[in-house]
């Protein structure tokens, strides 16, 4: 039974070989290598994983990600980034994907009307060419959409039923000014207990091309591991989407120190005790293998 970590980040120290943007989360001298992650995979019987670009959207800034994908082609797939105001997003997407390995792109904004009462024409959205090209080339779209754009997703999902969509981190859409780095160097997103995504992202369950990552709990929970205050969100996602459209992910490296990678691999057992073994297998890897089309490989011994 395959086990797949459907969302994590690796990055090298910033260098001429691996240039990248420095951030509070990933300063230029920090390194979270693929070898370190492979060690955690081995320890926790994780077979494959989705590496999500961190460190900037420019082509050159993807160098470390691309090296990892080239070195371990049966282990990892990748998600790239697109610069804001990219003059030719289609060419950018194709250039990143041409070596194989990068199968999709992460978006944080959609570029449509801020007012939910405004008339909507998806063809005017800034992200429309990206969606159109994803539909043409079968790229996955990896959505961690800001709250101001949360109402726009339904229009695009409906317009492009052939695009595979993955909502990141429990489908939460982070609000302006709600991000900070916590004492463990992890992202922290202040989120209301009554989750607004219940009435946006979670309402998209009727669209078969939409899936959700069960990840990032540490960033939203008001409690320590195992984040029991989020059991209700997990139950709702399970009821609405079902195990065949939910994927577990660790969001490494932010979890290495607290609560620890091994703990993250146990989190679904803690938060979703009601599910069957086959559903657990789907969430822990089966759904990702099918939906993201990971190459077949044997489980680690």
């Amino acid at each position, binding site marked *: 039974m395959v086990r797949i970590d459907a969302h994590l980040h690796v990055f090298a120290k910033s260098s001429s070989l691996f240039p990248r943007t420095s951030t509070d989360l990933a300063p230029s001298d920090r390194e979270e290598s693929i070898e370190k992650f492979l060690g955690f995979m081995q320890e926790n019987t994780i077979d494959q994983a989705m590496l999500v670009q961190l460190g900037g959207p420019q082509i050159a800034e993807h160098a470390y990600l691309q090296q990892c994908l080239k070195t371990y082609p049966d282990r990892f797939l990748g998600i790239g980034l697109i610069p804001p105001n990219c003059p030719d997003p289609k060419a950018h997407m194709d250039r990143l994907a041409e070596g194989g390995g990068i199968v999709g792109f992460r978006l944080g904004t959609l570029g449509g009307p801020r007012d939910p009462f405004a008339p909507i024409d998806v063809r005017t959205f800034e992200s429309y060419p990206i969606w159109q090209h994803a539909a043409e080339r079968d790229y996955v779209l990896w959505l961690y959409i800001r709250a101001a754009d949360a109402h726009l997703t339904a229009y695009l999902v409906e317009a492009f039923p052939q695009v595979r969509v993955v909502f990141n981190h429990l489908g939460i859409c982070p*609000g302006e000014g709600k991000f900070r780095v916590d004492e463990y160097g992890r992202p922290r997103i202040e989120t209301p207990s009554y989750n607004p995504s219940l009435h946006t992202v979670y309402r*998209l369950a009727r669209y078969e091309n939409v899936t959700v990552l069960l990840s990032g709990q540490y960033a939203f929970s008001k409690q320590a591991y195992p984040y029991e205050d989020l059991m209700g969100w997990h139950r709702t996602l399970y009821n609405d989407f079902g195990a065949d459209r939910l994927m577990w992910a660790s969001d490494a490296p932010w979890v290495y120190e607290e609560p620890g990678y091994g703990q993250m691999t146990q989190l679904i057992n803690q938060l979703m005790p009601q599910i069957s073994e086959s559903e657990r297998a789907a969430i822990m890897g089966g759904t990702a293998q099918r939906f993201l089309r990971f190459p077949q490989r044997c489980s680690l011994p």
Partner: protein
Amino acid sequence: MIPETVGPTPEQKAQWELEGYIVLENALRGAQLQRLQAAFDKAVVECKEDWLARVARGETMPTCFDIPQPLERDEIFVDIVDHPSWFGLLQDFTDGETLFLGPQVRSVPVWPVSYTGWHADVPMSNPLHIKVQIYVEDVDEKSGEFAFVPGSHRAGSGPYKRPKMGESMPGHRRLPGKAGTAIVFNSYGWHTAMDNTTTTSRKSIILIYERRTPEKVHPDTFKAIAPLCTTPERRALFGLEV
């Protein structure tokens, strides 16, 4: 003061018990309806920018817009709480123990999916919980109209699943209506807003009531409108006295 009210007709009482809802056409009309519409639109204009900012901060949902503290904005929002078109029914159903819990003065934008799915508001162990949904403008079929599963409020009904498509709920009834229509429903029952496939947003007001129990009476909740509550009946309705 609370205007003179009348209780349900025998037919209404039978429908309430059997089906769990009653539609009151023309419950509001004429100048009073126009006054409500004007107050509603004025509040929307006053509050919209703040709502958009809260949406952007991730503090509230973008798929429905509730006016904050509406009772403090215009007296019409207080006057409809004990409106004679439905208050007599509420008093009958609660044996004269109606307690007002709160209003939702709600605009629902057009969206490809309804902002909410099929649900019941409270378990049947809760004291009787009643809502009155008032259409402020015409709500046609397929424009986000309220829908209810008749009989789903009764013990032993169901079990009910939550279909992804609103129209897939077995036995449901869509309840479109003209401006001024009020729908009184038992919140034990399963209900939703249907998808809105038109180009017109839905404007409605949802008034929430319950059979009075001591633990639900909080005199501070509506103290801002205490000057408008000059009769014992209204003070009891708004829970201004324990």
